[in-house]
């Protein structure tokens, strides 16, 4: 039939060209390497659907691309369902599987096993990702030497050689005078030198250098303003919550860290504009207790209530003050069985990964995820820093943090607004300090990579939801507001 028959059947396991050298329910390994998930046994069907889609597109008089951009696409890796979405969007019924032998039995025969990339899921889950941006800001000798010395110093801390670490720290202070500490590697190195000094010279058991909750809130707010990360996180989470609340009249959002409630005005406004009218919205905001007699949670709640009233959204707020997330008990949230619940956690869950101090049977993270699951929420939105900052070995943690935060600072260079930028840097600096300086229950910044979170959440009974193209499109538009010159690598976000 085709010109490849002789070449292929020579490689396949039986004489007939209809045999398959891979098990049918396995994902086609070569397409996986291209980022697509298609089962080998489904290939022919998928091909037929593609054919059908092409015919429909050719015969559709209206502007196909307009129709296509209005449609919401999900998970393009799954070619079959992507094609089906478009077929139904173009008002054509999805074809039933048929045995039409339209496609000759040309079989994929991986002639050279070592060239075939591993199945996509394996590649992304089993191998830990270390995403590096080489810091090429100043390739002067001093900059590079600083980094090398920092790593050496961390190594000696890990080995317990504090005297050596101390003298290395002094060397680095000297090196710092020879680099530009206003930006780039000099600035980042400065923070890490401070953090290491704290660890080496300060006595053990110092109070966490975190400051009051009021200070944290202010720094957080400026971090939110100075760079796009939190804005995107809020935006994406809100989009997912909005979609999950579709069709429900009583909805309840549980925010694990209210701060200044920056995430919620946008959601309230989006709900106000919902076709069919807004639901009744309850917001429960969790936050640390205010020591100075203020009830900061209630203040934020009042402001949000005012906004909700102005756009005619029925709204009720409840504040739950808790010093730690593990102190929150589900009964405090007063979830009613009739309401649709969304649980929203922005950079909070990693704090639960510390050692088990209560000597209870389960780890804090398991307990909390367990009761969240029991609330039976429509959706849980989780935002976490993607970094491997919870490794057991200090040196590994340190090196990872060095690269991660270098990148963060690098990206902050794009922010021109003061004092937002300076305060955002202070916010980041506190994270660095916690990762490098603290241990045990004091170390709360226990960031972990996406793969670990995905496993953990799946084990707790959660299923990942795919981000739709509509949310992605709006996020892209948001991106243009930041006038970023560099190309932004889009990461897949499974919520």
């Amino acid at each position, binding site marked *: 039939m085709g010109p490849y028959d002789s070449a292929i059947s020579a490689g396949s396991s039986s004489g007939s060209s209809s045999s398959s050298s891979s098990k049918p329910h396995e994902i086609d390994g070569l397409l996986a390497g291209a*980022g697509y998930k298609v089962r080998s046994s489904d290939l022919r069907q998928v091909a037929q659907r593609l*054919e059908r889609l*092409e015919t429909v597109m*050719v015969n559709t008089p209206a502007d196909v691309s307009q129709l296509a951009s209005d449609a919401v696409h999900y998970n393009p890796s799954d070619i079959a369902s992507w094609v089906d979405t478009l077929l139904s969007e173009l008002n054509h019924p999805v074809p039933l599987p048929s045995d039409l032998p339209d496609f000759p039995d040309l079989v994929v025969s991986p002639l050279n096993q070592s060239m075939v990339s591993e199945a996509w899921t394996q590649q992304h889950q089993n*191998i830990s990702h270390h*995403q590096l941006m080489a810091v090429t800001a100043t390739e002067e000798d001093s900059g590079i030497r600083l980094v090398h010395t920092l790593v050496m110093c961390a190594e000696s801390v890990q080995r317990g050689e504090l005297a050596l670490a101390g003298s290395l720290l002094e060397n680095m202070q000297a090196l710092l005078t020879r680099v530009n500490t206003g930006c780039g590697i000099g600035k980042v190195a400065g923070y890490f030198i401070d953090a290491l000094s704290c660890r080496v010279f300060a006595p053990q058991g110092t109070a966490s250098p975190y400051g009051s909750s009021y200070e944290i809130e202010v720094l957080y707010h400026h971090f939110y303003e100075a760079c796009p990360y939190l804005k995107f996180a809020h935006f994406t989470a809100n989009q997912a919550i909005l979609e999950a609340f579709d069709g429900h009249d009583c909805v309840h959002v549980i925010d694990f860290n209210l701060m200044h409630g920056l995430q919620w005005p946008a959601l309230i406004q989006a709900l106000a504009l919902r076709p069919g009218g807004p639901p009744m919205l309850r917001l429960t905001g969790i936050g640390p207790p205010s020591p100075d007699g203020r009830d900061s949670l209630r203040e934020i709640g009042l402001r949000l209530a005012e906004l909700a009233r102005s756009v005619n959204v029925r709204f009720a707020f409840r504040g739950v003050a808790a010093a730690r997330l593990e102190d929150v008990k589900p009964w405090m949230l007063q979830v009613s069985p009739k309401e649709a619940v969304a649980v929203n956690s922005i950079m909070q869950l990693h704090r639960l990964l510390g050692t088990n101090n209560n000597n209870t049977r389960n780890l804090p993270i398991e307990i909390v995820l367990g009761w969240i699951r029991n609330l039976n929420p429509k959706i849980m939105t989780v935002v976490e820093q993607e970094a491997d900052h919870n490794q057991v070995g200090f040196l590994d943690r340190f090196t990872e943090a060095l690269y991660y935060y270098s990148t963060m600072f690098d990206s902050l260079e794009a922010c021109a607004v003061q004092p937002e930028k300076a305060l955002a840097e202070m916010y980041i600096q506190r994270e660095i300090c916690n990762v490098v300086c603290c241990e045990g229950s004091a170390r709360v910044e226990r960031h972990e990579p996406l793969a670990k979170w995905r496993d953990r959440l799946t084990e707790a009974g959660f299923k990942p939801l795919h981000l739709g193209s509509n949310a992605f*499109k709006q996020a*892209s538009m948001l991106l243009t507001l930041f006038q970023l010159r560099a190309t932004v690598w889009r990461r897949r976000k499974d919520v």
Partner: protein
Amino acid sequence: MAGDNEVNLNESKRVVPLNTWVLISNFKLAYNLLRRADGTFDRALAEFLERTVAPNTFPVDGVFSVDHLDRSTGLLNRVYQPAPENEAQWGRMVDLEKPLSTTKIIPVIIFFHGGSFTHSSANSAIYDTFCRRLVNNCKAVVVSVNYRRSPEHKYPCAYDDGWAALKWVVTRTWLQSGKDSKVYVYLAGDSSGGNIAHHVAVRAAEAEVEVLGNILLHPMFGGQMRTESEKRLDGKYFVTIQDRDWYWRAYLPEGEDRDHPACNIFGPRGRSLEGIKFPKSLVVVAGYDLVQDWQLAYVEGLKESNHDVKLLYLQQATIGFYFLPNNEHFYCLMEEIKNFVNPNC
């Protein structure tokens, strides 16, 4: 019209393996959705549909990758290297002080991905995979350039970015090798990437920056005239004259036609390459590519300008045959490229 389409689809189905057909058809249809009749492009949807992969400092199948920021352009270059022999060094930061080797020559291939100047990026899964294969096959370092794309960035942006990437590469001391401590540079690209490689090589020759060779994988060239291959193969193997026209309109300056020298290299407005120190070229032409007459004309033009060029004509290959290693053309191509960049040849 529908009848014609059935015929067309039947032909392409018969010459490629099933998974290749699914892959390229999927691209074809997605791209049809993204190109608008008014010449604009749905970039947001394109980015959403694009299958991308992150760099990975831990070697996968013997190759690791790191993204480097070129501060002069703000663009990222993804650098692929063979895994260090010492496993203890896996996952560690790239040593920016040491050259690749002080004894052996390690070729550095600057790769410009395809996509008709409009689609894909250096982190596209298909190109990430391809670059990794190149590293293993040639024992080379590959630098994949994330050039700016049309229609948002028209000619000459892609060439400017390619030239900037070349300058970046040749000034990295850590990409040097051999006893002479220099960077042994080759330029490579498929489709529009091949076109970019050509133009960057011309700039390099004029600026006396040494490029050791060009590898052009069914490069994207064209002209006003409709050639025989375009007419014969229109719509038959995934590509149409209409979409080629759209991409040229998107890339070339407003009001220009396809005889613009960016597009029609040896055409009426082409510049002469005689006498300049242009590198040797390996030009790969797929027998089912409707653009082949232009590619063959390019090869002739190089010969007539007294430049070293080898034509690899793969009679029964379609565009994109090198994305999946499931056909003999793929292995033939890899062998040719390996020999082309081998310092001993």
